[in-house]
């Protein structure tokens, strides 16, 4: 009996032990990854050279000598003096010394990290999965309609011809003398019809063209680099102001200089996201666009540390939003004082692969917005000077309160909706439609 119990416990405990060791094994691998990400990943990637070398196969390069690697990791500058390979490595990386991990990582942890590196395998990319066909050409109906109209017109003309022929035949039979047939280009009815159609269509086109002069809604020029706002501001959530910080500080929302692009693209040298398409639906190679940026920047990925930002050449982007020279427009006035969102005038920029002009940018469009937009008085020091409005609002509120008290409400129970009073004041009321605000 006791033997049996003993055997049972032994079996159970071995099972438990095996299970435990299995769990701890996976958790150890997890630890290695976590340690690597916390301590090494800022400078090393496994398959890409960053501040430090790519670490895949590091043990082979060190000839499997873990003891030396340990010394190197713990205090690289001291170890480099004793080992020619290590000192050559420091030289190759322009004297950038690795942080000393003495006291940060112990031997066991270093081993865990090294194990993680040893067992790491690059993930094979499953190319072509997803994304493809997502942008199947949207069938354009206008072509179909055009062809249909043409066919119908031809049918109608033939039927007219047939009708007149039949009429002629029947007339011949009943002996009515047929009038001399008139060619249709001499037929007055036809001529009148054509003139009317030409007048209507021509007039419409002329008016539309005249209104459209100098207006560029939907303008979407091809840029020197296919830069996708959808990828940067949409997927990667980079704030508009990261690149266009000037929008808050002055007249222009600045176009970022190449060094701002290179803040990230010094390290990000390939595009791995969703497939990119230009406005015509043609696929765009993202990595090639980054290569183009490197050309402008004069950046050589193999010698990243030696890059000199002052040698960069500006990218000549094509300007999309162009207000006429006789209009003054200031970005900071709208974003900072007016608290207008970028998207109000630029549309859903986070969804645009290629930017196009969203707003009309006509005077009617400007004035309309100034008439409708409520002034953001709250928590806005810029408008504290509008004493008169303050007094007016106060008077109106006092009056309404007095009315309510007269009706029998108690003063302490009255809660007026302040938004109702503030919302009456539009930009127009504070001079937003005066000519010289924008034209001078």
């Amino acid at each position, binding site marked *: 009996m006791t033997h049996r119990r003993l055997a049972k416990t032994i079996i159970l405990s071995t099972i438990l032990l095996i299970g435990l060791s299995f769990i701890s094994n996976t958790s150890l691998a997890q630890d290695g990854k976590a340690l690597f990400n916390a301590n090494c990943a800022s400078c090393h990637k496994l398959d890409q050279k960053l501040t430090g070398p790519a670490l895949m196969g590091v043990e082979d390069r060190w000839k499997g000598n873990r003891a030396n690697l340990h010394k190197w990791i713990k205090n690289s500058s001291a170890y480099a003096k004793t080992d020619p390979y290590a000192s050559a490595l420091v030289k190759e990386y322009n004297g950038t010394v690795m942080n000393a991990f003495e006291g940060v990582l112990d031997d066991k942890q270093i081993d865990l990290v090294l194990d993680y590196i040893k067992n790491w395998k690059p993930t094979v990319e499953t190319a072509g999965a997803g994304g493809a066909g997502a942008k199947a050409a949207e069938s354009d109906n206008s072509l179909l309609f055009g062809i249909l109209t043409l066919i119908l017109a031809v049918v109608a003309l033939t039927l007219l011809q047939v009708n007149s022929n039949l009429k002629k035949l029947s007339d011949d039979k009943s002996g009515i003398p047929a009038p001399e047939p008139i060619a249709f280009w001499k037929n007055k009815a036809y001529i009148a019809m054509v003139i009317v159609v030409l007048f209507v269509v021509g007039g419409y086109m002329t008016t539309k063209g005249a209104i459209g002069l100098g207006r560029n809604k939907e303008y979407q020029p091809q840029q020197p680099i296919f830069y996708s706002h959808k990828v940067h501001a949409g997927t990667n959530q*980079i704030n508009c102001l990261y690149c266009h910080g000037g929008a808050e500080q002055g007249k222009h929302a600045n176009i970022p200089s190449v060094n701002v692009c*290179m803040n990230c693209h010094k390290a990000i040298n390939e595009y791995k996201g969703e497939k990119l398409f230009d406005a015509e639906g043609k696929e765009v190679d993202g990595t090639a666009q980054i290569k183009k940026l490197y050309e402008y920047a004069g950046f050589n990925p193999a010698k990243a540390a030696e890059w000199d930002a002052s040698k960069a050449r500006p990218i000549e982007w094509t300007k999309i939003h*162009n207000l006429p020279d006789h209009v003054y427009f200031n970005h900071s006035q709208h974003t900072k004082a007016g608290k207008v969102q970028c998207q109000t005038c630029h549309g859903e920029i986070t969804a645009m692969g290629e930017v196009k002009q969203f707003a009309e940018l006509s005077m009617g469009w400007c004035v309309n917005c100034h008439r409708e937009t409520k002034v953001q008085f709250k928590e806005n020091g810029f408008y504290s000077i509008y004493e008169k409005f303050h007094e007016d609002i106060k008077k109106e509120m006092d009056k309404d309160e007095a009315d309510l008290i007269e009706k029998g409400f108690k003063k302490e129970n009255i809660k007026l909706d302040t938004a109702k009073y503030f919302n009456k004041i539009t930009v127009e009321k504070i001079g937003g439609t005066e000519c010289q605000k924008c034209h001078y």
Partner: protein
Amino acid sequence: MKKLTIIAFLTAAVVIVSCSDVKRKPNDIYMPDMAYSRAYETYADHSNLKDSGIYYDNMPVKGTIARGEEMPFPYAKDALGDTTNYVASKSVKSPVDSLTEEQLTEAERMYLINCGICHGKNLDGNGPLWKDGSGPFPAAPKNLIADAVVSKMPEGQMFYSVTYGKNTMGSYASQLNRKQRWDIIYYIKKKQAAAKATAAPAKTETAAK
């Protein structure tokens, strides 16, 4: 006659198909000299001004300090492979010793715009560009709270790194002025101190156990 109609049909079809609705060219303009500035505007090419006899330097006079701006940083950028100034910058004290509530929110906002995309909104080095390694950025941004080096880095050295860039991080001197950089560093230091204050009692507790 039949041939002619076929040709007309085909050309009409080609014209209709080739009319894409993507507008690559701007519209005509009624009075171009009123629409496009005759004067040189921002981002106009003024590299060739000298050819027309105009001598214009768009750089401020050396040593100019803008109003409200902090004094310049005393150390220049190290030459490649040198770390003298990087080490020396440790001794530089921040000119910002306190910020009002409003200034602090502004510093936080600037941090979130410029730093947060990599270093994370919680300063944990996990911004949307890293996203636990699944983002596009190949290098792990420093965890400003937990990293052994950065959490203890003196403010002067932080300023050096933000100004001139360090390792894979670029220079932010063109995006943030000196005052903004010092303010952001003040904000980070404040967050680091707060994190340490909450971590320290926990540690003593576990030690007591």
